[in-house]
């Protein structure tokens, strides 16, 4: 419970978000190694993407609860844009990776998993504009 958490913290800013960022980066590294070793996307990558998607859906759910509780994001338009984009990213990676069962499929998973943490951070920033 740091200073940031004493004021009603952003719902996009909790353990779920941290877990999503860490997992996403882990999957990105795993997929990068696979791509460098000329390996197509393996089961671990798809499981990683599935768990990541669950975390992101959990994040969306937490946000929905906060919204129902009367909290509002600082930039609603951007916030919901990022949120919708965010939950679409892992499925997009999975579909494209299935279409491309070569090392480049792994490269796609790596690329999308590098973008996901950025979107999570942007999501947090667009919530906090008013709160700061």
């Amino acid at each position, binding site marked *: 419970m740091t200073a940031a958490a004493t004021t009603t913290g952003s719902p996009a800013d909790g353990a779920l978000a941290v877990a999503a960022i860490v997992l996403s980066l882990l999957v990105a590294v795993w997929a990068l190694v696979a791509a460098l070793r000329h390996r197509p996307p393996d089961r671990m990558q798809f499981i990683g993407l599935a768990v990541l998607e669950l975390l992101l859906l959990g994040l969306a759910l937490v946000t929905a609860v906060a919204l129902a509780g009367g909290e509002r994001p600082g930039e609603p*338009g951007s916030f919901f*844009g990022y949120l919708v*984009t965010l939950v679409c990213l892992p499925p997009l990676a999975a579909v494209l990776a299935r*279409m491309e069962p070569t090392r*480049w499929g792994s*490269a796609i998973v790596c*690329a*999308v998993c590098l973008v996901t943490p950025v979107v999570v951070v942007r999501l947090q920033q667009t919530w906090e504009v008013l709160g700061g």
Partner: protein
Amino acid sequence: MAEPRTARPRTNAGPGRLLIAVYLLFAIAATSRAALQIATRFDEAPLAYLLSALAAVVYIVAAVGLARAGHAGRRVALACCTLELVGVVGVGAFSLARPDLFPDETVWSGFGSGYGYIPLVLPILGLAWLWHTSRRTQGAPS
């Protein structure tokens, strides 16, 4: 490697698919950004927001062109990548020289610095990929 050669150069397999994926991501990013900017505060920076919209359209059309992989798709992708390169270099230079014209950021401002300079690298990769695939098909013995 040993896949059968078709008459048409395939731009939508292998590295091309990765390129299409990145183009898709930028299409999403630029489209949502432009839509939001134009819908909420168009009069603040009309030029910047119209350029955002143009960038969005170019990314979408480039992704479709690469994915279609035929001769027409190739030509469309070539035009889009060229336009993108001109756009990112031009807008990048302009946004540094005349910041007053760009009170708000676009995807292409500062040579795409807000997006890790990927907007600058992407059209170059696209052109290289188009060149590579066309060379490979022309040079391949049938």
